[in-house]
């Protein structure tokens, strides 16, 4: 009944959904959809970046003091981990494009390993903050921490708490997106294993990859803004 304007002899790819006329239209739609979704994510994180920007301008010394106490080495490692994971995503897609099943599956697995490593390192960081009583709430304590460059001026604990609130909410939201990303990649791995992806059709990989790259880019902004305030 629903016949596209292209030929009758099309080998009807089971992946072509009925409401699309051509595979190209379907792929274009999926890509556009994911780009728009990422646009909404930019706005979502944007509100937090806006709040961060305003309070950083208002309370710079206190933010600098608080930022010094989070582990930039761990944060830096995580940055490297995520960048590597984006590389493996690209390689996985290349594997699909060139029918290299081993590369595709292997790199998908590597991506997930990197993702889990990221979350693990994050967990270590959070535990550190918990132990130092830097988690906002009743047990928060930031007394007698000097402002960088002014050893006799103590940071205002209330302003430091705002830094840590934003730190936890921003990195926490990011970690949540990582977890969702891992879920997506679990499905992608399963589908790749089942042979669903071919050089002609691997749109879910592309679209999932876009998402993963976005999560990576958010981290690339978060890292210097949160970990590297006023470091020389």
């Amino acid at each position: 009944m629903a016949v596209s304007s292209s030929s009758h002899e099309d080998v009807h790819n089971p992946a072509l959904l009925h409401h699309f006329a051509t595979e190209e239209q379907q792929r274009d739609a999926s890509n556009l959809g994911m780009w728009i979704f990422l646009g909404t994510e930019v706005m979502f994180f944007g509100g937090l970046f806006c709040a961060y920007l305003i309070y950083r301008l208002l309370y710079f010394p206190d933010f600098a003091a608080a930022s010094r106490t989070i582990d930039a080495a761990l944060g830096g490692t995580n940055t490297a981990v995520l960048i590597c994971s984006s590389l493996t995503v690209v390689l996985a897609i290349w594997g699909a494009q060139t029918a290299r099943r081993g590369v595709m599956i292997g790199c998908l697995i590597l991506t997930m390993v990197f993702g889990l490593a990221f979350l693990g390192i994050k967990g270590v960081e959070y535990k550190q903050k918990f132990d130092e009583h830097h988690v906002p709430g009743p047990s928060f304590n930031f007394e007698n921490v000097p402002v960088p460059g002014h050893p006799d001026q103590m940071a205002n604990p209330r302003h430091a708490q705002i830094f840590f609130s934003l730190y936890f909410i921003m990195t926490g939201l990011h970690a949540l997106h990582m977890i969702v990303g891992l879920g997506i990649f679990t499905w992608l791995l399963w589908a790749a294993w089942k042979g669903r992806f071919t050089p002609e059709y691997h749109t879910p990989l592309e679209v999932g990859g876009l998402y993963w790259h976005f999560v990576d880019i958010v981290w690339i902004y978060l890292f210097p803004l949160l970990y590297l305030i006023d470091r020389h």
Partner: protein
Amino acid sequence: MATAIAQPVERENYLNKHYGVGSWLLTTDHKRIALLYLASITFFFFIGGFFALLIRLELLTPAGDLVQADTYNKLFTMHGQVMIFFFLIPSIPAVLGNFLVPMMIGAKDLAFPKINLLSWYIYAIAGILMLHCMLTGGVDTGWTFYTPFSTAFSNTKVIEAGLAIFISGFSSILTGLNFIVTIHRMRAPGMTWSRLPLFIWAHYATSIIQILGTPVVAITLVLVVAERALHLGIFDPKLGGDPLLFQHLFWFYSHPAVYIMILPSMGVVTEIIACFSRKRIFGYSFVALSSIAIAVFGFLVWAHHMFVAGISVYAALVFSILSYAVAVPSAVKVFNWTATLYKGSIRYDAPMLYAFGFLGLFTMGGLTGLFLSALGINVHVTDTYFVIAHFHYIMVGGALMGYLGGMHFWWPKITGRLYPEGWARLAALIVFVGFNLTFFPQFILGYLGMPRRYYDYSHMPEFQVLNVLSTAGATVLGVGYLLPMMYFLWSMRYGKPAPDNPWRAAGLEWQTPSPPPTFNFETEPVVTWEAYNYDEIDKGHKEVPQVVG
């Protein structure tokens, strides 16, 4: 052409193709999803309306004698939240948009049918959470959630309400995303941008606002919930925070949100006026571009809700001047609609009566926006009944009338039945009269100084007369809304079967049977004509033929 006889064997269409609850709850057909939304938003409309009724009853007398203060505060809060997030924002896009966008562009469905269904489920879950919140104590912060009251002082279910609205936002975002991709990628051959019905342009503009604005209120609500739950201090001055930051973040979405509510209605009105004047809309490109201009400029004016909030004088000047800029495209639309009537061939069917009502009420509401944008006047009338009257003129006199007009216009297409025209015209009239009686006195009340959100005005008994008029109007308005509810339901069983195109309207959706088959078009249409080709239709050309694929 039209047949008045019930057909003995019903053609297969999207309604009778499958039966059973499962076929509805697991559908991916955009038309069925539209009906799922229709049922849910109508449900919430009556809840929000019930709250409004209680508010108006309380305000009949100066003393706070119907409900307690805390109850009243919950009533106006939940009236606002339900009406805005669970009725108005979904209404036209999720019902008429979902149903018509694919059909108007010649597509078989939206780009992402499963995401469309997901969108409804997200809405339903949010709605259930909101219902639970209302039934187990409610929330009393005002729909605006201002801090630090909402984060540190209110004793009600702020977190639950915040979460419910947060979740509902994703429904809105996904609908917008679906529409944008659909309009970009799924237009039938020959359906160029300049041949699109203006309903589509309006929904495109709305979708832009939905995807860019909603995430900001989402994250704002996350912050409010986190602050309240964990005593953070992002918005609490006692902990170093800034309550005005909340207002900026909140209004950054909530102002564009009002354009989410009015733009689709403008799209509906455009379709109706063109059809019932038998004319192409005057100034098609200007109307199309105005929709986009409203969407863009709408993001630049949020702090006009904050002129007395403590922002600097210079910020106020900037936002005031931009607010006047955003008024221009809306004015342009009103002029274009009016000009369309000139030398038309006008019929007064119910949809057109709603369109006329829209023209009058939206004009009045929009003009009062000029009052509010004037800094000197804003200081006096903000936070009073003047503002309440202003936004109800736009949202109820504007958006809701457009919605009702659209429901009448496309009812035959959606259900395959005709509604009773006489009752419909009567209802339109009752709504118009009732509406004005309810809300016009509120402009006066506001200028006289009656603040909003007051349940007791016993110190100002001089306000009573106007309040009584307003409540009387609300009763009439209520009748006006109940009537369509009743005769629409009646028509689904007893209404005359509708022909494919009872209005001889232009538009691809009318080229299908009423109700349409599941996949809309037997063969993919190829478009070779401009939108609103009423001259060709009325010259007796057959309904412009589909090109056989």
